[in-house]
């Protein structure tokens, strides 16, 4: 089946997954278009990994329909996976093999011929700055190198859709930035990307569109900037331990605000109004900043720790 421009690369329609009596994913729908980067955000246990596993056919969905490249994953799993790159959450590199062998052997699982695999592996080692490490054993790699190798391995088959489950979790700022730079390069080359992350700032910068899921349901979907504007506003006033009178006032005036522990966060598009609030209630303890995706995330999914 040929893919037309309008047809999404990936479409998830009312996907549903239960484990026994527990519902991990409860009717999630979204679509990813060609060439875009789509983010899947949500707190721990929201169902992101489960959704991704249903997409590449690791876990069969209990209900709903998932189509990749216009094919149903239930019937076309082999054809689909031949064109997918998957970077799983957690390290699944082959510890019995060297860095270079990890790439060559993985290529063989896609039926890529030895000579071609060597060419691609050399390119990828250069692209991910792993050339000097190619004879290294797996346990000689740092966390950042291992993650770059995971990513290199995921694109050895030149996928049409790259799926990344928390690609930057647990990395130091340098490694994280290197990884995002590489992902940006891939995106510029036209790669379609679906990723999950807990790094809100990076998601805001990197994703063309995203959806926030919570308890296995889509809580919001859209362009990051539009989501922030619609759900939070342009600015946020953060106040440490304000007087009760402030909350009462906000409540009466119908102004959007959240509590987070002892902190109070007031949202608004009108900076002057927020400044006036600060003057009135908390000249010392308050500061005004731009609202972010993190505000939207916390507004939608609650500010308490999840079990």
């Amino acid at each position: 089946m040929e893919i037309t421009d309008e047809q999404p690369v990936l479409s998830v329609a009312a996907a549903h997954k239960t484990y026994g009596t527990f519902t991990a994913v409860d009717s999630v729908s979204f679509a990813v278009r060609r060439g875009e980067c789509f983010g899947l955000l949500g707190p721990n246990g929201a169902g992101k990994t489960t959704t991704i596993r249903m997409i590449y056919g690791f876990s069969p969905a209990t209900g709903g329909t998932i189509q990749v490249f216009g094919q149903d994953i239930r019937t076309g799993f082999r054809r689909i996976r031949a064109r997918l790159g998957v970077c799983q959450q957690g390290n699944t590199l082959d510890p019995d093999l060297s860095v270079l062998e990890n790439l060559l052997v993985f290529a063989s699982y896609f039926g890529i011929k030895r000579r071609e695999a060597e060419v691609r592996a050399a390119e990828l080692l250069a692209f991910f700055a792993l050339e000097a490490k190619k004879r290294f054993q797996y346990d000689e790699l740092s966390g950042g190198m291992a993650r770059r190798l995971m990513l290199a391995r995921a694109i050895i088959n030149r996928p049409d859709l790259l799926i990344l489950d928390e690609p930057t979790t647990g990395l130091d700022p340098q490694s994280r930035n290197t990884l995002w730079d590489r992902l940006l390069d891939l995106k510029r080359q036209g790669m379609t990307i679906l990723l999950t992350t807990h790094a809100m700032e990076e998601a805001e910068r990197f994703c063309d569109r995203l959806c926030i899921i919570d308890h296995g349901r889509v809580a919001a979907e859209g362009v990051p900037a539009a989501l922030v504007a619609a759900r939070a506003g342009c600015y946020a006033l953060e106040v440490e331990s304000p007087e009760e009178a402030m909350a009462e006032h906000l409540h009466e005036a119908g102004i959007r605000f959240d509590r987070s522990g002892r902190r109070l966060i007031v949202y608004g598009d009108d900076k002057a109004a927020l400044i006036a609030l600060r003057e009135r209630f908390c000249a010392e303890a308050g500061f005004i900043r731009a609202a972010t995706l993190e505000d939207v995330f916390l507004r939608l999914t609650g500010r308490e720790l999840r079990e």
Partner: protein
Amino acid sequence: MITDARFSWLFLAVWRRNLRVYRRIWVINFLPPMLEPLFYLLAFGLGFSGLISEVVWHGRAMSYTDFFAPSMLAATVMWQAFLETSYSSFVRMFYQKTYDSLLATPLTVDEIIVAEIVWGATRAVIAAAAMLAVVAALGYAPSWQALAVLPIAFLGGLTFGAMGMAFTSVTSSIDMFNIPVFLVITPMFLFSGTFFPLTGLPAWAAGLASTLPLYHLAELTRSACLGLLGPASLGSAAVLAAFAAVFIPLSLVGMRRRLVK
């Protein structure tokens, strides 16, 4: 809508992966099957010859070492294949998450599991070949039929590899492999007409032992080494094939249940 096949030749890629890892430590892999017969034959040849002058196998009298040398080939095939698809496969599946990464490629669960079993059989063939070289050099495999030990080792390797994989599919921790090793594999190792002919056992025990796959494997390796392959050998081969035909599907069903979450 055409559904993608659950099995293809792509399974050989997983087999080649295992071969690649095996070759890296080939010295360690080769030494035991070559040294073991030396040690055993030396010990039994020197120590036993005074105690047991002859053994009788299917009406033929032979020295104890002539009887025992082919048994070692059978036992090695069993241990190599069973340990590979039990402990080693479990480590790859459970600790190294290798199967998880394989399931993000076009490979299917069936291909991965068949590749592991066939690899276990391959390992058994390699060990049997190394051991046969020593056994033959010492004069315990005087017939050209001894070369049939290699395909026999492959068949036996499939049988015991499939049994190991079937256990792996229902094993929750690596220590649990002690159960099949001590309740199934070790008794089989001792009582399958390997260390002494079944005629030495009471009738009921001999009857029981003759249903064991290792008994048939040892019959085959002994017949091959002594140049006595015949119609009865086909029966033994059929028994091994029947065990494989039961345990391969069992391990596929068990592994599908385990890996597809």
